Protein backbone atom coordinates (compact mmCIF):
# COMPACT_ATOMS: atom_id res chain seq x y z
CA UNK A 1 0.00 0.00 0.00
CA UNK A 2 1.49 3.32 -1.04
CA UNK A 3 0.38 6.37 0.88
CA UNK A 4 -0.70 9.31 -1.23
CA UNK A 5 2.03 11.55 0.13
CA UNK A 6 3.88 14.43 -1.47
CA UNK A 7 6.08 13.19 -4.23
CA UNK A 8 7.90 16.40 -5.02
CA UNK A 9 9.03 19.51 -3.19
CA UNK A 10 10.58 20.09 0.22
CA UNK A 11 7.96 18.06 2.12
CA UNK A 12 8.48 14.98 0.04
CA UNK A 13 9.89 12.09 2.08
CA UNK A 14 12.59 9.83 0.63
CA UNK A 15 10.79 7.37 -1.57
CA UNK A 16 11.19 3.67 -1.20
CA UNK A 17 7.95 2.71 -2.89
CA UNK A 18 6.54 1.21 0.24
CA UNK A 19 9.23 -1.35 0.90
CA UNK A 20 12.96 -1.65 1.19
CA UNK A 21 14.35 -1.61 -2.26
CA UNK A 22 17.59 -3.30 -1.25
CA UNK A 23 17.84 -5.69 1.66
CA UNK A 24 21.60 -5.15 1.96
CA UNK A 25 24.01 -2.55 0.59
CA UNK A 26 25.83 -5.02 -1.67
CA UNK A 27 22.58 -5.58 -3.57
CA UNK A 28 22.47 -1.93 -4.54
CA UNK A 29 26.13 -2.05 -5.64
CA UNK A 30 25.51 -5.12 -7.80
CA UNK A 31 22.40 -3.50 -9.20
CA UNK A 32 24.14 -0.24 -10.08
CA UNK A 33 27.14 -1.94 -11.65
CA UNK A 34 24.93 -3.77 -14.15
CA UNK A 35 23.08 -0.56 -15.00
CA UNK A 36 26.33 1.42 -15.36
CA UNK A 37 28.00 -1.21 -17.56
CA UNK A 38 24.97 -1.30 -19.86
CA UNK A 39 24.97 2.46 -20.08
CA UNK A 40 28.64 2.55 -21.05
CA UNK A 41 28.21 -0.32 -23.49
CA UNK A 42 30.45 -2.90 -21.80
CA UNK A 43 27.57 -5.30 -22.41
CA UNK A 44 24.04 -4.89 -23.65
CA UNK A 45 20.99 -5.04 -21.48
CA UNK A 46 19.89 -8.02 -23.51
CA UNK A 47 23.08 -9.95 -22.71
CA UNK A 48 22.71 -9.25 -19.03
CA UNK A 49 19.08 -10.17 -19.03
CA UNK A 50 19.71 -13.48 -20.74
CA UNK A 51 22.38 -14.28 -18.19
CA UNK A 52 19.94 -13.42 -15.40
CA UNK A 53 17.22 -15.57 -16.88
CA UNK A 54 19.68 -18.46 -17.19
CA UNK A 55 20.72 -18.05 -13.56
CA UNK A 56 17.16 -17.99 -12.32
CA UNK A 57 16.18 -20.92 -14.49
CA UNK A 58 18.95 -23.00 -12.93
CA UNK A 59 17.39 -22.63 -9.51
CA UNK A 60 14.51 -25.03 -9.11
CA UNK A 61 14.16 -24.37 -5.44
CA UNK A 62 11.40 -21.87 -4.77
CA UNK A 63 11.79 -21.91 -1.01
CA UNK A 64 12.53 -18.95 1.21
CA UNK A 65 16.19 -19.17 0.26
CA UNK A 66 15.32 -17.28 -2.88
CA UNK A 67 17.49 -14.20 -3.23
CA UNK A 68 16.96 -12.23 -6.38
CA UNK A 69 20.18 -10.25 -6.13
CA UNK A 70 22.26 -13.41 -5.68
CA UNK A 71 21.16 -14.28 -9.19
CA UNK A 72 21.71 -10.75 -10.32
CA UNK A 73 25.30 -10.89 -9.06
CA UNK A 74 25.83 -14.31 -10.60
CA UNK A 75 24.58 -13.02 -13.94
CA UNK A 76 26.89 -10.01 -13.69
CA UNK A 77 29.85 -12.30 -12.99
CA UNK A 78 28.89 -14.55 -15.89
CA UNK A 79 28.71 -11.69 -18.38
CA UNK A 80 31.93 -10.07 -17.13
CA UNK A 81 33.78 -13.38 -17.35
CA UNK A 82 32.46 -13.99 -20.86
CA UNK A 83 33.54 -10.52 -21.94
CA UNK A 84 36.95 -10.89 -20.35
CA UNK A 85 36.28 -7.80 -18.23
CA UNK A 86 36.74 -9.74 -14.99
CA UNK A 87 37.61 -13.43 -14.98
CA UNK A 88 35.99 -15.66 -12.37
CA UNK A 89 39.43 -16.46 -10.96
CA UNK A 90 40.21 -12.77 -10.48
CA UNK A 91 36.95 -12.18 -8.66
CA UNK A 92 37.47 -15.21 -6.45
CA UNK A 93 41.05 -14.24 -5.64
CA UNK A 94 40.10 -10.67 -4.78
CA UNK A 95 37.10 -11.72 -2.68
CA UNK A 96 39.26 -14.19 -0.78
CA UNK A 97 41.75 -11.41 -0.11
CA UNK A 98 38.96 -9.15 1.12
CA UNK A 99 37.68 -11.88 3.41
CA UNK A 100 41.03 -11.92 5.22
CA UNK A 101 40.84 -8.31 6.34
CA UNK A 102 40.90 -7.90 10.10
CA UNK A 103 37.58 -7.35 11.84
CA UNK A 104 36.64 -3.70 12.02
CA UNK A 105 38.47 -2.84 8.81
CA UNK A 106 35.44 -1.08 7.52
CA UNK A 107 34.38 0.83 10.62
CA UNK A 108 34.80 4.15 8.86
CA UNK A 109 34.09 2.91 5.38
CA UNK A 110 31.18 4.55 3.46
Amino acid at each position, binding site marked *: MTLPMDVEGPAAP*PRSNGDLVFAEPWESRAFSMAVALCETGVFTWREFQEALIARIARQHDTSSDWCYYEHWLGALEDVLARQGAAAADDVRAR*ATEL*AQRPAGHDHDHR
Partner: protein
Amino acid sequence: MTMSESGERIPASLRTEAVEQLLTERGLVDPKALDKIITTYETNVGPLNGAKVIAKAWTDPQYRRSLLEDGTAAIRELGYIGAQTEHVVVVENTATSHHVVVCTLCSCYPWQLLGLPPSWYKDPAYRARIVREPRKVLSEMGLELADDVEITVHDSSSEVRWLVLPERPAGTEKLSEEQLVPLITREAMVGVAKIRAR
Protein backbone atom coordinates in the same frame (compact mmCIF):
# COMPACT_ATOMS: atom_id res chain seq x y z
CA MET B 1 21.85 -24.48 -4.73
CA THR B 2 24.56 -25.30 -7.21
CA MET B 3 28.06 -24.02 -6.70
CA SER B 4 29.23 -22.62 -9.95
CA GLU B 5 32.50 -21.63 -11.45
CA SER B 6 32.20 -18.14 -10.04
CA GLY B 7 32.72 -19.31 -6.49
CA GLU B 8 29.30 -18.98 -4.89
CA ARG B 9 30.69 -20.23 -1.60
CA ILE B 10 32.14 -16.78 -1.02
CA PRO B 11 29.49 -14.44 0.40
CA ALA B 12 27.80 -12.23 -2.17
CA SER B 13 28.81 -9.07 -0.34
CA LEU B 14 32.51 -9.90 -0.73
CA ARG B 15 32.14 -10.96 -4.34
CA THR B 16 30.31 -7.73 -5.10
CA GLU B 17 33.06 -5.72 -3.45
CA ALA B 18 35.68 -7.67 -5.38
CA VAL B 19 33.90 -7.08 -8.70
CA GLU B 20 33.54 -3.38 -7.95
CA GLN B 21 37.23 -3.04 -7.06
CA LEU B 22 38.39 -4.89 -10.17
CA LEU B 23 36.11 -2.92 -12.48
CA THR B 24 37.10 0.35 -10.86
CA GLU B 25 40.81 -0.46 -11.25
CA ARG B 26 40.19 -1.32 -14.88
CA GLY B 27 38.36 1.93 -15.48
CA LEU B 28 35.07 0.21 -16.29
CA VAL B 29 33.00 1.67 -13.48
CA ASP B 30 33.25 4.74 -11.29
CA PRO B 31 32.03 4.25 -7.71
CA LYS B 32 30.62 7.78 -7.68
CA ALA B 33 28.58 7.04 -10.78
CA LEU B 34 27.27 3.91 -9.06
CA ASP B 35 26.19 5.97 -6.04
CA LYS B 36 24.34 8.25 -8.38
CA ILE B 37 22.51 5.38 -10.09
CA ILE B 38 21.43 3.98 -6.73
CA THR B 39 20.18 7.37 -5.56
CA THR B 40 18.29 7.87 -8.78
CA TYR B 41 16.50 4.57 -8.60
CA GLU B 42 15.88 4.68 -4.87
CA THR B 43 14.70 8.23 -4.60
CA ASN B 44 13.92 9.89 -7.87
CA VAL B 45 12.45 7.36 -10.19
CA GLY B 46 9.89 5.50 -8.11
CA PRO B 47 6.50 5.04 -9.65
CA LEU B 48 6.32 8.79 -10.17
CA ASN B 49 6.98 8.80 -13.89
CA GLY B 50 4.37 6.11 -14.45
CA ALA B 51 1.91 8.00 -12.25
CA LYS B 52 2.37 11.14 -14.32
CA VAL B 53 1.65 9.19 -17.50
CA ILE B 54 -1.55 7.79 -15.99
CA ALA B 55 -2.73 11.14 -14.57
CA LYS B 56 -2.26 12.74 -17.97
CA ALA B 57 -4.20 9.96 -19.65
CA TRP B 58 -7.05 10.40 -17.16
CA THR B 59 -7.33 14.13 -17.78
CA ASP B 60 -6.48 14.41 -21.46
CA PRO B 61 -8.65 12.20 -23.70
CA GLN B 62 -6.44 12.73 -26.71
CA TYR B 63 -3.34 11.69 -24.78
CA ARG B 64 -5.23 8.66 -23.48
CA ARG B 65 -5.98 7.59 -27.04
CA SER B 66 -2.39 7.95 -28.17
CA LEU B 67 -1.13 6.15 -25.08
CA LEU B 68 -3.33 3.14 -25.80
CA GLU B 69 -2.51 3.21 -29.48
CA ASP B 70 1.25 3.59 -29.17
CA GLY B 71 2.46 3.55 -25.58
CA THR B 72 6.11 3.87 -26.48
CA ALA B 73 5.60 7.07 -28.49
CA ALA B 74 3.22 8.61 -25.95
CA ILE B 75 5.63 7.95 -23.08
CA ARG B 76 8.59 9.18 -25.07
CA GLU B 77 6.66 12.39 -25.64
CA LEU B 78 6.80 12.99 -21.87
CA GLY B 79 10.50 12.18 -21.77
CA TYR B 80 10.29 8.97 -19.73
CA ILE B 81 12.03 6.67 -22.09
CA GLY B 82 15.27 4.80 -21.63
CA ALA B 83 16.99 1.48 -22.04
CA GLN B 84 14.21 -0.24 -20.15
CA THR B 85 11.27 1.43 -21.79
CA GLU B 86 12.00 0.88 -25.40
CA HIS B 87 8.72 -0.76 -26.14
CA VAL B 88 5.81 -0.25 -23.81
CA VAL B 89 2.28 -1.46 -24.42
CA VAL B 90 -0.43 0.14 -22.31
CA VAL B 91 -3.57 -1.82 -21.47
CA GLU B 92 -6.67 -0.35 -19.91
CA ASN B 93 -8.53 -1.71 -16.92
CA THR B 94 -12.28 -1.25 -16.94
CA ALA B 95 -15.24 -2.45 -14.89
CA THR B 96 -15.45 -5.62 -16.99
CA SER B 97 -11.90 -6.24 -18.08
CA HIS B 98 -8.84 -6.47 -15.85
CA HIS B 99 -5.19 -6.66 -16.87
CA VAL B 100 -2.30 -7.77 -14.70
CA VAL B 101 1.41 -7.99 -15.50
CA VAL B 102 4.01 -10.59 -14.63
CA CYS B 103 7.39 -11.68 -15.90
CA THR B 104 7.46 -15.46 -15.72
CA LEU B 105 11.07 -15.77 -16.89
CA CYS B 106 12.79 -13.32 -14.58
CA SER B 107 11.40 -9.99 -13.53
CA CYS B 108 11.30 -7.67 -16.50
CA TYR B 109 9.73 -4.48 -15.32
CA PRO B 110 9.44 -0.94 -16.69
CA TRP B 111 11.89 0.61 -14.23
CA GLN B 112 11.91 4.04 -15.74
CA LEU B 113 8.19 4.25 -15.16
CA LEU B 114 7.68 2.32 -11.96
CA GLY B 115 10.99 2.38 -10.12
CA LEU B 116 12.56 -0.82 -8.90
CA PRO B 117 10.40 -3.93 -8.87
CA PRO B 118 8.85 -4.70 -5.49
CA SER B 119 9.81 -7.95 -3.79
CA TRP B 120 6.50 -9.70 -4.48
CA TYR B 121 6.93 -9.10 -8.22
CA LYS B 122 10.22 -10.98 -8.14
CA ASP B 123 8.86 -13.80 -6.01
CA PRO B 124 8.74 -17.19 -7.78
CA ALA B 125 5.33 -17.87 -6.26
CA TYR B 126 3.80 -14.75 -7.82
CA ARG B 127 5.50 -15.41 -11.13
CA ALA B 128 4.19 -18.94 -11.32
CA ARG B 129 0.76 -18.59 -9.75
CA ILE B 130 -0.58 -15.39 -11.29
CA VAL B 131 -0.69 -17.17 -14.65
CA ARG B 132 -2.47 -20.27 -13.34
CA GLU B 133 -4.88 -18.75 -10.88
CA PRO B 134 -4.95 -14.97 -11.30
CA ARG B 135 -8.28 -14.42 -9.56
CA LYS B 136 -7.12 -16.25 -6.46
CA VAL B 137 -3.71 -14.56 -6.34
CA LEU B 138 -5.28 -11.11 -6.81
CA SER B 139 -7.77 -11.86 -4.07
CA GLU B 140 -4.92 -12.87 -1.75
CA MET B 141 -3.28 -9.56 -2.57
CA GLY B 142 -6.43 -7.74 -1.55
CA LEU B 143 -8.09 -7.27 -4.91
CA GLU B 144 -11.45 -9.04 -5.17
CA LEU B 145 -12.75 -9.19 -8.72
CA ALA B 146 -16.29 -10.31 -9.56
CA ASP B 147 -16.59 -13.57 -11.47
CA ASP B 148 -17.78 -11.78 -14.61
CA VAL B 149 -14.68 -9.58 -14.82
CA GLU B 150 -12.42 -10.94 -17.50
CA ILE B 151 -8.78 -11.19 -16.41
CA THR B 152 -5.88 -11.03 -18.85
CA VAL B 153 -2.36 -11.82 -17.65
CA HIS B 154 0.45 -10.21 -19.63
CA ASP B 155 3.87 -11.80 -19.56
CA SER B 156 6.67 -9.24 -19.87
CA SER B 157 9.67 -9.94 -22.01
CA SER B 158 12.77 -8.15 -23.10
CA GLU B 159 10.81 -6.92 -26.12
CA VAL B 160 7.62 -5.71 -24.50
CA ARG B 161 6.95 -4.03 -21.17
CA TRP B 162 3.35 -3.72 -20.08
CA LEU B 163 1.86 -0.81 -18.21
CA VAL B 164 -1.66 -0.94 -16.85
CA LEU B 165 -3.86 2.14 -17.18
CA PRO B 166 -5.99 1.77 -14.06
CA GLU B 167 -9.59 2.94 -13.74
CA ARG B 168 -9.93 6.47 -12.48
CA PRO B 169 -11.78 6.16 -9.20
CA ALA B 170 -15.15 7.79 -8.64
CA GLY B 171 -14.97 10.93 -6.57
CA THR B 172 -11.86 12.29 -8.27
CA GLU B 173 -13.67 14.22 -11.01
CA LYS B 174 -12.67 17.59 -9.57
CA LEU B 175 -9.00 16.75 -9.06
CA SER B 176 -6.38 18.23 -11.37
CA GLU B 177 -3.72 16.18 -13.13
CA GLU B 178 -1.19 17.18 -10.43
CA GLN B 179 -3.60 16.23 -7.64
CA LEU B 180 -4.23 12.84 -9.20
CA VAL B 181 -0.54 11.85 -9.42
CA PRO B 182 -0.08 11.00 -5.71
CA LEU B 183 -3.10 8.67 -5.78
CA ILE B 184 -1.62 6.44 -8.45
CA THR B 185 0.23 3.48 -7.02
CA ARG B 186 2.76 1.15 -8.51
CA GLU B 187 0.53 -1.80 -7.61
CA ALA B 188 -2.32 -0.39 -9.70
CA MET B 189 -0.01 0.12 -12.68
CA VAL B 190 1.02 -3.55 -12.49
CA GLY B 191 -2.64 -4.50 -12.13
CA VAL B 192 -2.68 -6.05 -8.66
CA ALA B 193 -4.68 -3.23 -7.07
CA LYS B 194 -7.26 -0.60 -7.88
CA ILE B 195 -6.86 3.06 -7.19
CA ARG B 196 -8.93 4.56 -4.45
CA ALA B 197 -9.93 8.18 -4.00
CA ARG B 198 -8.50 9.57 -0.79
